[in-house]
């Protein structure tokens, strides 16, 4: 006998819509994620999902018709194999056949995977568990492979669809298998369950994420590596979207550089090779990392260091044209030979306004204005002065062919060989900068250092030996050390990343090379530290001295101390041979504003728009870079040629108001003749009584602060604002939802009072009464309303409901008009009935039952027939 299982089209459709479709979507998501990293997939994630889905659907359909798995699967494999053979024979050319067979392989794998999925989903109730487990594993492998997990958001973004899918598919599969489908209400019942389940799932998931987000991101930061927002290990993105160097440097196993093709800033470095016109780019330093945390293997700043030469002003907090100077930095730099002052101007684009970077050793900063036509491009600018060694240069990694540079390299090493030993250096300084962790695991570094330094006396030679160690090639002429942004982490948890890099993987980015170098140097007894900042790349000779900086130029390197010569930059990171990006272009450098002779700040005490003269109550003054503060005199400004600015908007003199705080700048030639005096009073006496002014900046510091707050708030929005908004909307929807039964009841009640037609009135009383009883969970079961009234309501609550029902049914079905007594019954029935029913239910119980949406829905639903089997 041939047993044919009855195939329900409804159930089949439901399975296709609720099981296969979501599976396809999740597969689409995974393919879409992986196509970023596997070129094999060739970006055709949509087509590939279709392969998978078609395979799944066909298998599902065949399984529905009870085909046996093995013969059908064998047929599939045979079909795929013969298709492959066909392709192999007919493809023209070697390239084509390779190309097509790769595509075919992808197709075959996906189709087969889909096939198995479809078959499993149809045949086995436990299959979704296996499937979701496999998908989760796949997802985790994907995250691990790409190493792209650097923040909690990423984690959630990658994992949550698959996690949600897993729970969904298991539940849906189960309930699809368990739902009776004998009636037409299958869809309704099923979707009701599904919607309830999904909303609970989402609420739970969202709630957990919302509440636990800080913890999750903390954990991810701790174990997943990276920071909260960026992927670049050397940079961090601030809330306002600007970028700054990080304040610590670890070896995280991966480094995502080059996120944004926009340059960060441009710099004008006024430095040349000694005795020539060839520009000598310098490294721009941001932070000094002098400490090492052995536990986390992180290099850290030491802000408590008494002899620090790290100069960290905040240019955004210094008044325009004011100068801030700290000569103790030069003192702490302990250098005297071959030093000179170099001026560097930084024009910031995306670099944080508060960031300060300059060649070491910097000691002076002055925020300057950006010329009008460049203001759109550059947000702010400052000038800095650094006490720089002649021997310092960014030319340590590029071995330029230029003979003059080769000559210079040779010269600087020769010069540094003359440096004295470290015997006379302050022992505190020496012990601090040569501190080497005593942990035994670093002993191997010590022995490597000893072998490298063997036979070398001069510190510079030891430094060069480390550089040569990194650049060494093996017997086959292959480089032993290479550059990678994804060096990975050692397989053993807790193993030293530094040791892993130096002795095993030999691959890494700047943090690894700098870290290893500093360890080797300190093992050799040479005082050294890590600094971070930006490496200057000399790409153009069009604009001498102008350099452009992109995100991938954020860098970490080593500074070595030589007695008398001070700290000198050495970058031991090997070049990245795999880098295939075209060199980034230099932009048009901004026009440098003339150096102001005089800048005065104060309040306008009087203004004469006709003569274009303004009186100023002077607070502070800068004359030829000499600053005079806390002045309290009045001067007169000549504004005939002055441009007036407020927040980079030009104003006319009429808009200048009395009492406004301004900063007035003068480039006047005739003021250049005066020399800065010791006292402001004597200087002001010498200056002409009517001081010519070229530019007036109206200060709006308060507004500026406010603006910053607004922008930072705007950027905070995605994290809390939208979540709150969604929460409020969800709450409102919930509130409305739960008050629906009450609203509907009130509406029916209102309808009773509204009509005078006894037929209509009777209908609404009937509806209201049954609604009330239903909502109070007095179950009608399979009874007709009349039976219900007689057998339940009247018996239980002592009402006259059946009497009313008699009248109502008569009014409804009879061809007679109701009698006067019956009319009376209709009009007086409801209030009494309602109060009687109410008296049987406590207020709290009534409220709770009126919140129950399930009973509400049941009122409008077909009562479930009693099924006996």
């Amino acid at each position, binding site marked *: 006998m041939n047993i044919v299982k009855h195939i329900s089209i409804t159930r089949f459709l439901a399975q296709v819509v609720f099981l296969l479709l979501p599976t396809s979507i999740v597969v689409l998501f995974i393919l879409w994620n992986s196509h970023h990293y596997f070129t094999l997939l060739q970006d055709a994630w949509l087509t590939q999902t279709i392969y998978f889905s078609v395979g799944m659907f066909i298998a599902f359909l065949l399984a529905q018709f009870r085909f046996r798995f093995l013969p059908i699967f064998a047929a599939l494999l045979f079909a795929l194999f013969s298709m492959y053979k066909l392709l192999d024979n007919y493809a023209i050319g070697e390239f084509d056949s390779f190309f097509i067979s790769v595509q075919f392989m992808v197709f075959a794998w996906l189709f087969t995977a889909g096939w198995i999925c479809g078959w499993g989903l149809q045949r086995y109730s436990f299959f979704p568990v296996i499937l979701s487990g496999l998908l989760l594993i796949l997802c985790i492998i994907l995250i691990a492979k790409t190493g792209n997990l650097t923040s909690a958001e990423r984690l959630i973004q990658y994992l949550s669809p698959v996690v949600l899918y897993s729970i969904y598919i298991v539940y849906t599969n189960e309930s699809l298998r368990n739902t009776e489908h004998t*009636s037409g209400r299958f869809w309704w019942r099923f979707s009701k369950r599904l919607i309830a389940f999904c909303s609970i799932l989402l609420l739970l998931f969202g709630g957990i994420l919302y509440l636990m987000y800080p913890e999750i991101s903390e954990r991810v930061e701790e174990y997943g590596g990276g920071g909260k927002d960026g992927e670049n290990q050397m940079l961090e993105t601030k809330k306002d979207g600007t970028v700054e160097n990080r304040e610590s440097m670890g070896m995280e196993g991966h480094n995502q550089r080059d996120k944004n093709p926009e340059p960060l800033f441009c710099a004008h470095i006024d430095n040349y090779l000694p005795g020539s016109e060839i520009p000598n780019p310098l490294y721009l330093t941001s932070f000094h990392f002098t400490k090492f945390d052995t536990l986390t293997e992180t290099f850290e700043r030491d802000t408590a260091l008494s002899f620090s030469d790290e100069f960290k002003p905040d240019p955004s907090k210094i008044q325009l044209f004011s100068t801030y100077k700290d000569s103790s930095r030069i003192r702490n730099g302990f250098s005297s030979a071959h030093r000179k002052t170099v001026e560097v101007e930084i024009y910031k684009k995306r670099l944080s306004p508060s960031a300060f970077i300059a060649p070491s050793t910097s000691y002076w900063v002055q925020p300057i204005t950006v010329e009008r036509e460049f203001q759109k491009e550059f947000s702010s600018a400052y000038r800095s002065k650094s006490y720089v060694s002649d021997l310092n240069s960014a030319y340590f990694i590029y071995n330029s062919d230029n003979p003059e540079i080769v000559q210079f390299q040779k010269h600087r090493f020769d010069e540094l060989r003359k440096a004295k030993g470290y015997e006379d250096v302050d022992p505190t300084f020496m012990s601090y900068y040569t501190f080497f962790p005593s942990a035994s695991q670093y002993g191997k570094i010590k022995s490597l250092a000893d072998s490298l330094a063997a036979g070398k006396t001069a510190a510079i030679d030891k430094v060069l030996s480390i550089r040569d160690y990194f650049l060494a090639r093996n017997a086959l002429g292959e480089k032993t050390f290479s550059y990678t942004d994804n060096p990975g982490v050692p397989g053993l948890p807790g193993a030293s990343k530094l040791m892993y890099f130096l002795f095993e993987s030999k691959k890494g980015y700047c943090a690894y090379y700098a870290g290893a170098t500093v360890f080797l140097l300190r093992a050799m007894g040479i005082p050294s530290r890590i600094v971070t900042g930006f490496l200057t790349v000399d790409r153009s000779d069009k604009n001498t001295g102008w350099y452009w900086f992109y995100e991938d130029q954020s860098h970490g390197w080593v500074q070595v101390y030589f007695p008398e010569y001070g700290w000198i930059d050495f970058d031991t990171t090997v070049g990245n041979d795999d880098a295939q990006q075209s060199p980034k272009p230099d932009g048009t450098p901004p026009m440098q504003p003339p150096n102001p002779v005089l800048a005065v700040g104060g309040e306008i005490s009087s203004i004469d728009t006709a003569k274009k003269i303004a009186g100023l109550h002077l607070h502070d003054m800068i004359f030829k870079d000499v600053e005079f503060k806390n002045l309290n005199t009045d001067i007169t400004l000549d504004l005939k040629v002055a441009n007036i600015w407020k927040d980079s908007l030009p104003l006319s003199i009429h808009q200048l108001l009395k009492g406004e705080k301004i900063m007035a700048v003068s480039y006047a030639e005739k003021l250049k003749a005066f020399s800065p005096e010791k006292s402001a009073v004597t200087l002001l006496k010498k200056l002409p009584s009517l001081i010519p002014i070229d530019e007036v900046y109206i200060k709006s510091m308060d507004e500026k602060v406010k603006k910053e707050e607004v922008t930072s708030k705007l950027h905070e929005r995605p994290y809390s604002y939208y979540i709150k908004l969604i929460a409020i909307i969800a709450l409102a929807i919930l509130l409305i939802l739960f008050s629906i039964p009450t609203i509907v009841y009130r509406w029916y009640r209102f309808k009773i009072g509204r009509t005078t*037609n006894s*037929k209509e009135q009777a209908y609404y009383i009937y509806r209201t009464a049954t609604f009330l009883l239903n909502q109070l969970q007095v179950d009608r079961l399979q009874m007709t309303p009349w*039976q219900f009234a007689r057998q339940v309501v009247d018996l239980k609550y002592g009402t006259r409901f059946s009497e009313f029902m008699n009248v109502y049914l*008569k009014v409804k*079905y*009879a*061809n*007679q008009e109701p009698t006067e007594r019956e009319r009376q019954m209709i009009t007086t029935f409801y209030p009494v009935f309602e109060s009687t029913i109410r008296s049987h239910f406590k207020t709290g119980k009534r409220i709770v039952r009126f919140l129950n949406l399930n009973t509400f829905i049941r009122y409008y639903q077909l009562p479930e027939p009693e099924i006996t089997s």
Partner: protein
Amino acid sequence: MDTILNETSMEETSTEKIERLILNMEGVIRGKREQIKQVITCLLAKGHILMEDNPGTGKTVLARTLAGSIAGEHTGNATFKRVQFTPDLLPMDLLGTHVFDDSKKEFIFKRGPLFCNVLLADEINRASPKVQSALLECMAEHQITMGEMTYKLEKLFFTIATQNPIEMEGTYPLPAAQLDRFYMKIHFGYVNEDTEMDIYKNYLHISHNLEQIHQVLTLEEVLQLQQQAEDIFVHDEIVRAVSNLVRSTRNHEGITLGASTRSGITFLKCLKAYALVNGRSFVIEDDVNDIAMAVLDHRMMYKNKEAKQNALKQLLTKEMDRLSKLKLF
């Protein structure tokens, strides 16, 4: 006996008459008000009734009580005949036969038990199909044709057939077409515990009641009531409900043979009579709910046992839900 008849005045309403009949029957048959009502419904709808249940549940007593409650034209009681159907029963045992009258030298027709007002066809499914069909034809035509002669049955001819469950041995199931002739098929069922206790305590009294049954209605009154039942008002929506129910049985996947149009008409007739039995001059939705199963169930052929139990209930629930939510103004 007669005193009771005399006391009833002509102004007595039909409701009171029916109530009297019911009460009278309830004196003998305890705890079966709904079944009594259904039997009276069939009587008033000019139909016949089939009762299916195990032996000893009171089917015969009910039939006897009904017959005893009605006063006949000529004799004291309405004529009540009982035929026990057996496999060897022949049609002429029912209809009657021509016998030769020696004195007149001709064949005269000797009337069978069919010529009566209330016929109890006991265990109808034990007789051969031949006998069954002979009976059912008379039920439909109200007349007997024997050779050239046609004999009219009584004006009031009401058959109460009883049947043991088909599963019992030695039974011939009634053909579907013949089942259709019965307006209703009701299940008698056992009485509940209290009633059963009551019956045991008073069985002597009850059997006495059966002997001494009062005649509460005349044959004429029954015929009048039958006429009144036809005048009961049926709302269009009730008609629609009947139509919906009947039609939906034809499309249900669990039902292989649905209800016919004739069964729809029967349904309407029964509804009217049932409303009258309940003392109403109009049909309400509850009437549909109360008798739908009894009217329709035995006309249907089901795919399986599960469908037999649920299919019609399902359709009825749906239709009743529609009616209960109907806005009629």
